[in-house]
């Protein structure tokens, strides 16, 4: 189902916003900070209203940073026909950016006119939602003309029938689209569903659909019903997250691209993470 053309991303990537493209490219070109020279791509968060300029695209080419486009407002859990204006705008931006792939967390990101950000709702892990997401991924791929990947979203409460990995595999199998496996989101789901992450991940056949890994900082807070994991991109990436990522890479049987999601983190922290990720996975 997947073709070699799906694998347009490789190596180590860093997430950023559109207005940070120039800065990240300049850092790589100057190797200042030095670890930036190890970056192969940027995972760029794009809204339908963002302006993509030829200068940005030129900078990406000069720095040899492939652009992966990470959508931030499309509701994969609702029919695309109801969001045509946004879809059209996104397609224009994917073309302008020369995106090598498009990806998004499966969920509900825009309500009415409001961009929900941290108030987003993850996809309900059930049959009706899977059907809609499958149809949307296939349609979106036809529109953008590049691989489209569905990412496991942050899940703070599980209201569905499927477990996460079964749901992801179902979506990938039926759509023919690849997956982004977010380690932090996965760990958060394991906490709230009382699963041991490594046991749960081991033997997951759906790993063959994964095309990219995301790893990010997080925080844990104690709570009366058990600790709660929170997505916190600016925080340090835990050693455990890297261990689970290593297990996932082993399960995948081939070296997949890794995106460090570190928006808001200090340059020193990002530098450290680029260095240790390069040494552990790409040396």
């Amino acid at each position, binding site marked *: 189902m997947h073709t070699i053309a799906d694998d347009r991303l490789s190596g180590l990537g860093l997430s950023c916003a559109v207005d940070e493209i120039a800065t990240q490219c300049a850092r790589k070109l100057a190797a200042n900070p030095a670890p930036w020279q190890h970056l192969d791509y940027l995972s760029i968060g794009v809204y339908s209203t963002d302006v993509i300029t030829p200068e940005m695209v030129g900078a990406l080419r000069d720095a040899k940073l492939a652009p992966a486009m990470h959508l931030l407002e499309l*509701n994969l*859990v*609702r029919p695309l026909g109801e969001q045509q204006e946004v879809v059209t705008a996104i397609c224009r931006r994917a073309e302008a950016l020369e995106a090598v792939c498009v990806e998004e967390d499966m969920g*509900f990101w825009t*309500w*009415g*006119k*409001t*961009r*929900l*950000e*941290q*108030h987003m*709702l993850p996809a*309900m892990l059930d049959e*009706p939602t899977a059907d809609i997401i499958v149809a949307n991924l296939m349609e979106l791929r036809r529109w953008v003309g590049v691989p489209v990947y569905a990412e496991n979203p942050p899940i*703070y*409460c*599980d*209201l569905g029938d499927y477990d996460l990995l079964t749901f992801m595999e179902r979506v990938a199998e039926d759509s023919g689209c690849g997956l982004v496996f977010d380690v932090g989101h996965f760990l958060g789901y394991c906490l709230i569903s009382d699963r041991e992450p490594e046991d749960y991940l081991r033997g997951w056949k759906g790993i063959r659909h994964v095309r990219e890994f995301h790893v990010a900082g997080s925080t844990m807070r104690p709570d009366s*019903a058990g600790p*709660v994991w929170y997505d916190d991109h600016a925080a340090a990436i835990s050693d455990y997250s890297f261990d689970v990522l290593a297990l996932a890479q082993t399960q995948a049987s081939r070296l997949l691209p890794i995106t460090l999601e570190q928006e808001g983190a200090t340059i020193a922290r990002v530098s450290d993470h680029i260095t240790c990720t390069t040494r552990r996975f790409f040396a």
Partner: protein
Amino acid sequence: MSDRYDELMTGLYTGAVPDWLPGAKRPVFLRESVRRRCELGSALRQNWPCTMFFGRCVLSEDFALSVFQHWPAYCRVATEITTGLYLGLKHAIHEAGTAPALWELFQYETLHVTTGSCAVEIPRLAKDRLTSAGLDGQEVYRFELRVPELWSRMKLYHAALAPACFVRDYEVVHGATYVARYRRNDRWLLDDVTDAFAQ
């Protein structure tokens, strides 16, 4: 046309569990509802700390609940969270039908807000009035109460988690008050320019 996600979102922020959710998921849903409303509450506190404290002391300990109740409806018109919260808080204040102090405190704090598109409703002075006061080119608003003092006192009470009776007993001073707003880096700063209008 509403779907399950509309119902989930509305339910999460009003505390109402959708009928179709299985019983076993109900406690999980309610726990998540509290978590999310606390996130909204943090945003309210960040932008309107004195307004929320004043409302809690003067109206009800559960004043924030009424804001959360209204927020879902404003997601239809607001493009980001802060603007939706502004509209929800405005609705809650009007609904409570309270004295002007809460309203003017709310509007005064809104002048500080840097995110979203919160359109204040306090009258902004026209150019000719600014010229005669020697404040050409400035952005000046007229309040009916001595709101800088009110805000300053509520900041103190809020920081000290003062008893609600302190807030209820505070005597608001009436009198036309002119406040100029200007930008410094990424912040809004406010200046009491009432003296410029003194006869």
